[in-house]
């Protein structure tokens, strides 16, 4: 791992959750938790990719508004490629953009669980 990778990781805010908890809290709070989750995840993914990809304002409504949801998960899929670079799974995570886009349309909470699962790997590698 290069020094630049270590530097990039140091800037990434910690937002570690059990993926299934994202699903449960999303359902129990009638989608309110997903607003918080999207805002925090947008921040984490922007920092992980080293550029402003996901606007926080898009993230607010992406938890429950369909067209924005699709856009959010498309951008999240792109950022996952950058997360993959940091955890040594670049090719594997790059290929998930399309599946995230499709899941974002039909079952956004499952897409959220997938993103959370891979972001958790980032912190596990760090530890």
């Amino acid at each position: 791992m290069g020094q630049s990778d270590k530097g990039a990781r140091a800037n990434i805010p910690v937002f570690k959750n059990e993926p299934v908890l994202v699903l449960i809290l999303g359902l129990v709070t009638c989608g309110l938790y997903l607003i918080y989750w999207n805002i925090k995840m947008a921040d984490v993914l922007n920092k992980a990719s080293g550029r402003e990809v996901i606007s926080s304002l898009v993230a607010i409504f992406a938890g429950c508004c369909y067209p924005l949801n699709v856009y959010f998960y498309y951008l999240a899929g792109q950022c996952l490629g950058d997360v993959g670079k940091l955890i040594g799974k670049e090719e594997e995570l790059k290929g998930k953009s399309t599946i995230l886009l499709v899941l974002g349309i039909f079952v956004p909470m499952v897409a959220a669980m997938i993103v959370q699962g891979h972001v958790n790997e980032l912190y596990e590698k760090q530890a």
Partner: protein
Amino acid sequence: MNSTKNRLSPDGELDSRSVRNRALGALVCLGAIVGSFLYAPCVTHGPVLCLSRLTVGLPCPACGLTRSFCAVAQGHFGGAFACHLFGPALFVLFAVAGPLWLVEAIRRRRIVRAPRFFFSTRVAMFFGACLALYHVARLTVMATDGQLLVSAESSLAGRLFLSVVHTFC
């Protein structure tokens, strides 16, 4: 505040990834705007698209945005605010961002730099809290005037529950 930047050449030229992002963003925004004009005549008797409302009868924080967008498209601004408090503001944001991103994607060059607050987590948290408070207030009103119970009874889970009760009781 975010310290990251979009990757731009010194003259504001966008890389292919940023062009793709803008093209999809423009498609989403303009699709929503055009869709609200086309869907407006049948919005009151259209299908329930919200998974939460469909399955358990509870509206999600964004429920009412489609009706609000359609009301704005028809020029009924009072009705638009009644359907969703944030609907008209979001409509304006979409109407500005859509054409702007489309032009940027076509020209492969940034025209306007997005204000810093668009990427500020604190600003997002503030607006997110406003949306959450609005949602809780709306649920409280719906619960007190009985709308929530009617909505829950007509949802998939509600109908399943009632059919089970009728079968065994």
